[in-house]
């Protein structure tokens, strides 16, 4: 029960931070838009149902959309990363133990190499798809590639900062739970 409260709290925090801090940053350049909210999806527990995961992704995206007035634009990439997440996690987490002993993806539970690959891959996927949809409506090819590159880089820096600032204690899953 406390876990659900924790995730709801985290959800609200991510949406508010994205909307009222990161989206309000005066734009330095058309290519620079800091995104962080999708980290919420990447931090959800391993054991979550795949359909529920997609639904949570959809809700996360659509709540960002309602604030920024672009319904569907952020929801689509969120659903995409929520759909692909279990496939990649199955490849990345160590398979020696039959059962997962940690609750959610983190540096401790996956190891630094696998975890950074996981973060970089999904940051790239999210941004590429988001900017692709945006680009379909307008823009040229150079705009697309530069914007994907720059925003991905910026997001990775932001995520690293978040990881350092808000250290998550990795929890073991116990039989009693």
């Amino acid at each position: 029960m406390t876990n659900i409260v924790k995730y709801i709290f985290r959800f609200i925090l991510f949406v508010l931070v994205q909307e009222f801090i990161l989206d309000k940053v005066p734009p330095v350049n058309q290519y620079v838009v800091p995104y962080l909210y999708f980290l919420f999806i990447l931090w959800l527990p391993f054991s979550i149902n795949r359909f529920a995961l997609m639904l949570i992704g959809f809700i996360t995206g659509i709540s960002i959309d309602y604030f920024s007035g672009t319904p569907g634009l952020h929801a689509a990439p969120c659903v995409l990363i929520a759909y692909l997440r279990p496939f990649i996690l199955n490849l990345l987490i160590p398979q020696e133990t039959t059962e997962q002993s940690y609750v959610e993806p983190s540096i401790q539970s996956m190891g630094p190499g696998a975890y950074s690959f996981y973060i970089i891959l999904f940051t790239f996927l999210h941004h590429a798809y988001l900017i692709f949809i945006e680009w379909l409506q307008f823009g040229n090819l150079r705009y697309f590639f530069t914007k994907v590159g720059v925003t991905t880089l910026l997001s990775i820096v932001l995520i690293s900062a978040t990881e350092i600032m808000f250290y998550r204690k990795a929890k073991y899953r116990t039989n009693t739970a």
Partner: protein
Amino acid sequence: MKNIFIFIRIYFNFISFVALQICCILILNKYSKTHEVYFAGITNEMVGKVNKKYDNVYSYLNLQQINNQLAQENARLRDSLKSSSIIVSSKVDSTSTFKPDSASLPIRKYSYLYARVVGNYVSSPINMLTLERGRLQGVEKDMAVVGPQGIVGEVVEVSDNYCRVKSLLHRKSSVSAMLKRDKNAGNIEWDGVNPSYVLMKNIPKSAKIFKGDTVVTSTYSNYPPNVMVGTIEAIRKDNSSNFFTLKLKTATNFFNLQYVYVVKNYRYNEQHMLEESKLKLND
């Protein structure tokens, strides 16, 4: 039949993924195509309220600038008051018997409603504003919005107490404007590059244009005529056409917009109906 169920069960995740994706794209398409009232009243009100809370805090940080803007606007309005100008010409005949009667009194066409900006975006290619004025305060769809310094945008959706405005900085915004110097009319668009600059298209090459010239709204537009749009920053010649493309610096500073005016055009419905009916005749 049984096979279908098995198929659905096996591919349930993929099917729901595709369904959600289609759902997203449909919402996006519907919204960007029509600019219809997509936001149901409830979400608009809710988001508006949260935005207002944030804005209450944020507006304190900008008070100095806002005061300056308002003071400047007051000064400009005082300037344009009839009482602040005097007639210098010696030809004025004080014995003239002409007195304006009620038939020649000016008829009011526009009225202004001030509104506070509670949500404002400049960083995306499709920027919207949220204002704390709605249907109950007399805001309707398609009303023009002007700021203290110049034009801002157009109302696209209205709920009871809030409205959403398609900013001038929107990829699909299009405003008819003219050069103040010789009344040549063109079209204002935004290329999505820099929130401080917009493009003005379809100015014939015969027009005399100088850097720093003022561009104002034309009489064809939804806006009241002669409202400041911006000043010419650069002139681009396109050899393949007979038109100039002008780069304008917007008069409105979209970064610190706090108060704007929603403009009611009393003749809008009449003009709109007439123009629509002409289309029907053409069919």
